[in-house]
């Protein structure tokens, strides 16, 4: 299979033509300002309508985007959700234009509806499904509307849309290349039935949500048609062109104010889904004048599991950072990519071959997300842009899947959205990160209530709270993650799967002396007596994961291992523990205000062990009053010990370069030690 790189690489805007530039001159007074706002409101309307008419839980979480693109397929603006979809809409439209526009058996006509969910053609992974509608005015193609959302089921070898057992694309369920699924503004029922058949765990959800995407798209199509009728096609072209051009110019201007230089970072992960093993990703940021080059050379090879990504998907993940931090105040157009080049070696896990399994592309891309955050924060801090030079945010993608038949007898397959939406925020240069900050892929998403979850899914929450000691420590600490325990109830069996990693090696790396957050084991208890104990009023049921695992008050078969966890059947009374990760700390732990340490202690964000052994705070164990003098002495002593342990660079390298992990760990790593 040949990857259509011609189109998937075309994330930069197409060169502007003289006519398009000329159209900018038509904009007088505040025409541009008003039109830009109008377009944004049109997309908001499309997004709201889509959310309200869909059924899957990721729609509720807001993991969606509705986008507007030029006739040539360049992103003009979006309402989201997730920036991933906005970026990945572009190559897929360009593919449709190239492949089908002049193809007599297909063509692109008013009222057509297209669909795609195969990442090979420019998407993210096949759980992320797109609907596209061309917008015509007086017979000419004028623009495109897209609507995209994550679908929590794809008919893959595992339930939940992100199979961790997949070895190649053939294990990942429904993958549809860009195709026409409707004409005359109507979806074709036979094609919807085909999709339902391919996603037969949740056929109705598939049909309903494709329809929701189409409704969102069509609303945008309708409004843009009205707008063009009122203002004229050249006016719209002028607005589109200015939105893309002004973003590009401002990104160039902003980059030019940063210092020139080269910035590097490396991160690792501990699993490829089907097996444990170390995987590395490397990024070198080179900034010269008004241009950035992000080079991911040195990244480990494509893996034989589903933790792979295509190049455009990796670049789209960079957008999450770029749109969210240094360019958060710019229009969300394709213009920002104009001064940025990205190099990702073909054959690496961030630029895999087309046959590769990429169902968990978003999870392998958590490596590139962390990398771009670190290298960019370095250059921004050095350029005195301290407020946006934050430590990396939690971005492990703590996804848990649940599937089966619920207590009402309705089949379901869904992501458990609470841990997903509660990773900790990164620390800032002047304050802590936000506890349970959110979901980096869709920053504004929300987790569900316990009561919503328990009404629809056959499990009970034993506890769900902030996870003590989950934050990365530092002068300013990262935000904490959460912990939750689910107990199966009211059905004989369900299936759970955990896609999270970082049980041994944390994806997130330290920043400016701040520590990365902790790693989390995979925990489950089979044949538990928790429901019986609950009924009998047993007083000492665990209230968090530490009590659960240390005190073992619940009887049953305990399993403590590493994530991820392939889909497994759980019976009534069985328990699965989930967690989300914290954010990275900023600065030296020895500089943290002891009062802030004690506040964290009182609020159960950290344990006494951490207060005493990480932050070196001395306090009265009864009253928790700080002993300032002894705290100062302990911290001075800790500094002295650090100095005593210090080595010259040469001495360090001599020792460091002799170290090597076992071959078993390095089987997916690539060359050792590789580029550095």
């Amino acid at each position, binding site marked *: 299979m040949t990857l259509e790189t011609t189109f998937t690489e075309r994330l930069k805007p197409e060169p502007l033509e003289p006519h398009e530039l000329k159209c900018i001159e038509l904009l007088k007074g505040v025409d541009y300002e*008003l039109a830009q706002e109008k377009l944004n409101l049109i997309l908001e*309307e499309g997004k709201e309508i889509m959310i309200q008419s869909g059924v899957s839980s990721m729609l*509720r979480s807001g993991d969606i985007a509705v986008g507007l693109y030029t006739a040539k397929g360049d992103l003009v603006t979006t309402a989201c959700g997730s920036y991933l979809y906005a970026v990945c809409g572009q190559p897929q439209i360009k593919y449709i234009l190239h492949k089908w526009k002049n193809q007599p058996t297909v063509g692109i006509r008013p009222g057509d509806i297209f669909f795609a969910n195969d990442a090979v053609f420019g998407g993210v992974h096949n759980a992320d499904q797109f609907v596209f509608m061309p917008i015509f005015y007086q017979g000419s193609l004028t623009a495109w509307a897209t609507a995209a959302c994550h679908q929590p089921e794809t008919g893959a070898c595992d339930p939940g849309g992100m199979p961790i057992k997949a070895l190649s694309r053939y294990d990942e369920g429904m993958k549809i290349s860009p195709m026409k699924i409707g004409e005359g503004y109507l979806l074709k029922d036979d094609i919807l039935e085909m999709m339902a058949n391919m996603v037969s765990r949740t056929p109705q959800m598939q049909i*309903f949500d494709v329809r929701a995407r189409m409704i969102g798209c069509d609303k945008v199509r309708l409004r843009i048609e009205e707008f063009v009728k009122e203002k004229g096609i050249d006016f719209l072209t002028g607005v589109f062109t200015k939105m893309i051009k002004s973003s590009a110019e401002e990104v160039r201007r902003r980059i030019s104010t940063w210092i020139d230089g080269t910035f590097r970072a490396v991160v690792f992960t501990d699993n490829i889904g089907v097996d444990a093993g170390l995987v590395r990703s490397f990024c070198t940021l080179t900034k010269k004048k008004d241009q950035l080059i992000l080079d991911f050379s040195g990244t480990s090879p494509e893996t034989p599991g589903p933790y792979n990504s295509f190049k455009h998907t990796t670049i789209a993940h960079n957008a999450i950072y770029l749109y*969210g*931090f240094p360019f958060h105040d710019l229009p969300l157009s394709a213009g920002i990519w104009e001064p940025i080049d990205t190099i990702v070696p073909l054959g690496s896990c961030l630029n895999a071959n087309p046959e590769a399994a990429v169902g968990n592309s978003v999870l392998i891309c958590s490596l590139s997300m962390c990398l771009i955050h670190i290298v960019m924060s370095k250059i921004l801090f050095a350029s005195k842009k301290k407020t946006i030079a934050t430590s990396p945010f939690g971005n492990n993608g703590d996804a848990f899947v649940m599937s089966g038949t619920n207590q009402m007898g309705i089949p379901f397959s869904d992501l458990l959205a609470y841990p997903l939406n509660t990773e900790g925020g990164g620390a800032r240069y002047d304050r802590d990160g*936000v506890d349970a*900050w959110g979901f980096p892929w869709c920053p504004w998403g929300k987790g569900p209530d316990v009561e919503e979850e328990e009404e629809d899914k056959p499990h009970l929450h034993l506890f769900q*709270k902030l996870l003590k000691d989950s934050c990365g420590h530092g002068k300013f600490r990262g935000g904490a993650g959460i912990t939750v325990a689910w107990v199966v109830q009211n059905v004989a069996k369900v299936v759970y799967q955990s896609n999270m990693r970082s049980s041994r090696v944390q994806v997130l790396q330290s920043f400016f002396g701040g520590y990365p957050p902790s790693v989390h084991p995979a925990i489950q208890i089979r044949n538990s007596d928790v429901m019986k104990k609950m*009924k009998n009023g047993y007083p000492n049921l665990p209230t968090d994961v530490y009590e659960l695992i240390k005190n073992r008050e619940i009887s049953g078969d305990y399993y403590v291992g590493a994530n991820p966890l392939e889909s497994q059947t759980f019976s009534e009374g069985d328990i699965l523990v989930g967690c989300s990760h914290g954010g990275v700390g900023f600065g030296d732990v020895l500089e943290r205000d002891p009062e802030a340490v004690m506040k964290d202690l009182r609020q159960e964000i950290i344990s006494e062990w951490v207060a005493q052994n990480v932050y070196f705070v001395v306090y009265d164990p009864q009253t928790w009053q700080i002993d300032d003098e002894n705290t100062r002495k302990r911290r001075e002593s800790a500094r002295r010990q650090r100095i005593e342990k210090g080595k010259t660079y040469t001495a360090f390298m001599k020792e460091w370069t002799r170290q090597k992990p076992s071959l078993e760990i390095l089987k997916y790593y690539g060359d050792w030690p590789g580029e550095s």
Partner: protein
Amino acid sequence: METKPINSIEIDIGGTFIDCFVHFEGNTATAKTPTTFDFSVGFMRVLKIAANQLRLKIEHLLSKTDIIRYSTTIARNKLLERTGPELGLITTEGFEDSVLIGKGAQWADGISKRDARNLAEVTKPQPLISRENIVGIKERVDYRGELLRPLQEEDLREKLHQLVDKGVQGIVVTLLWAHKNPFHELRTREIIEEEYPESSIGYLPVVLSHEVQPLKGEYKRSLTAILNAYLRPSLAENLSSIRNKLHKQGYKGEIYIVHGSGGVAEIRGTTALETFKGGSVAGIIGSLEIARHYSLENVIVADMGGTSFDIGIISNGKSQLYWEKPLIDQWTVNSTLIESKSIGAGGGSIARISQFLGKKLEIGPESAGSMPGPACYNQGGVEPTVTDADVVLGYINPAFFHGGQFQLERDLAEQAIYEKIAHPLGIDVEEAAINIKNLVDGNMGNVMFKETHCQGLDPRNFTLFSYGGAGPTHCCGIVKTYQISHIIIFPFSPFFNAFSASLMDILHIDEFSRKFIVSHPGEKGTSLDIRMFNQAVKKMIEKAKHYVLGQRFKPQDLQFYLELDMKYTKQLHLKRVRSPILFFQDDKDVEKLLEVFTSEYSKIFGQAGILQGGGISIETLILQAVCPLKNAYFPKYKRIRSTPLSHAKKGLRNVHWDEYGGYKQTAIYDYHALECGNIIDGPAVIEARDMTIVLPLGFTFTIDLYMNNHLERLE
């Protein structure tokens, strides 16, 4: 608008001014005074001004007044100040952090999209109850309401004492699934009362989540309970102080508090949360009544004040916008409130040039407020505002602002616009001022357009009710693009919210989360358990009767309306529909309900949105019990003449008109000298004490038989 005249007083306390509207023996009076730190002081002051206008002593006015309606922002102010009592929260063990986690991105609630995109800076709001004051107790109820784990009372007592030792002054109890089975919440209160009885000095007020709002969703239910507990003491103190002062001066009746749900209720029937947005919602409800008076089915209600532009939508004779996710400050709550969509666009909104993106002009959301205010106020403000542009363009008369009580400085307006806008853009002051006006008008029009479309409605079929201090100046600009051809402006536009309160009835809303399957997925026919459904409705009606009887009204005065939050089975979004009947007799009645749901649903989502075979369920029942009050009315006048008297024309002034491509000598009218039936063709400017109506070419102004002002676009 009929019924015999009653004497009523309406007070609306806003952030900047206290407004008063009085109906007294066929006459009306309006008064305004700056908001005071102690609201009761301003309350009595504005009453005195109104009494003076009517040439009455305040004691006489109050002794003859039948009803006082009051909308207040005190709860909002106290929330912003964070001056509520120290509270403790008792919740289910293992879920102590739920309100702090806030479902993750709690930081995005209540902030602008622009701020929410700035991920490096976002932060969660300071909690109203600190983590140290939250304890989890050993108990558990499941989704069916069955007790899974008995409440362990000794553990509860121990944790309660811990909270008291920390100095808490009140307790909020919010347990999982308490709305399904409140047994543990009720028992918790009994224990607290046993430990700290009402007779003791250490008495602790207790708020139970299921009593405040028995709805599914522990996060919102908890916040609703917390906010009510947090704000209750200061609100009670304020209302008690006002009531005492009123009674001392001769008022014998009850004070009715304006609720954000669209009605009024006595103080004892009011929770703190219900007072939020009372003023702006009053404007929508008042508009609803006026729309009925004029037989208008579709109305957009637009209030443009100093800092914001708020809109409400009336369609098919009812308010369209229930607030789907009500937010109080940064807290999501579970309460039925009418939504008025708001953007930061008002007279005080600041114009500025974005330093990048091609020097883009932006307006708001920041406002110069009343201090220092726009540059032309000459109070030290240097930022150009919408009001400054209005002065430069000749719309606002610098010598007649607030009837001449406040002298504006045109030179300062020009200077600010020159320095901050015109010079950086390389254009002259006139063009910069036009751009400011057109941008703010266009932004408001865009929002109006989007909100009506989101309800599946076409704004072109609507009449615009325009009010607020800046509304009449900008309304024609707002409708410019959207072909709205009819605008109504009220003579008391700056007091519209206070006036509107005089049209409000007693309203009690009871909400109840309960899932009823109306039709199963993939099955034909209906499957509603009619007996259980009717039982639930009956129970709610009994509760409402009990409530209204408590307010000294007769059950037969009550009118009931049943609304239902419904959805397709797997869907998450709820659509609220009004049930055609209160009680169902048979499947045919249920089918009628399904028809209503499908019809309402398809209005927004189109036929493609109908999920055939998707199954439909009812999730929440909402019963509205309305007890009509004797309300105000518009007196009817006789048409006198179509041409204004000569003295109504104050003279000519240079005013900028897009239609003429620049300034033109324009007729200026004294609004107070106009009479019933007068007609004025644009371009013209009509100046009243507290508003300026800007009438461009192509619009005609008419005063109708009720002395309301119609602006109509000529075909």
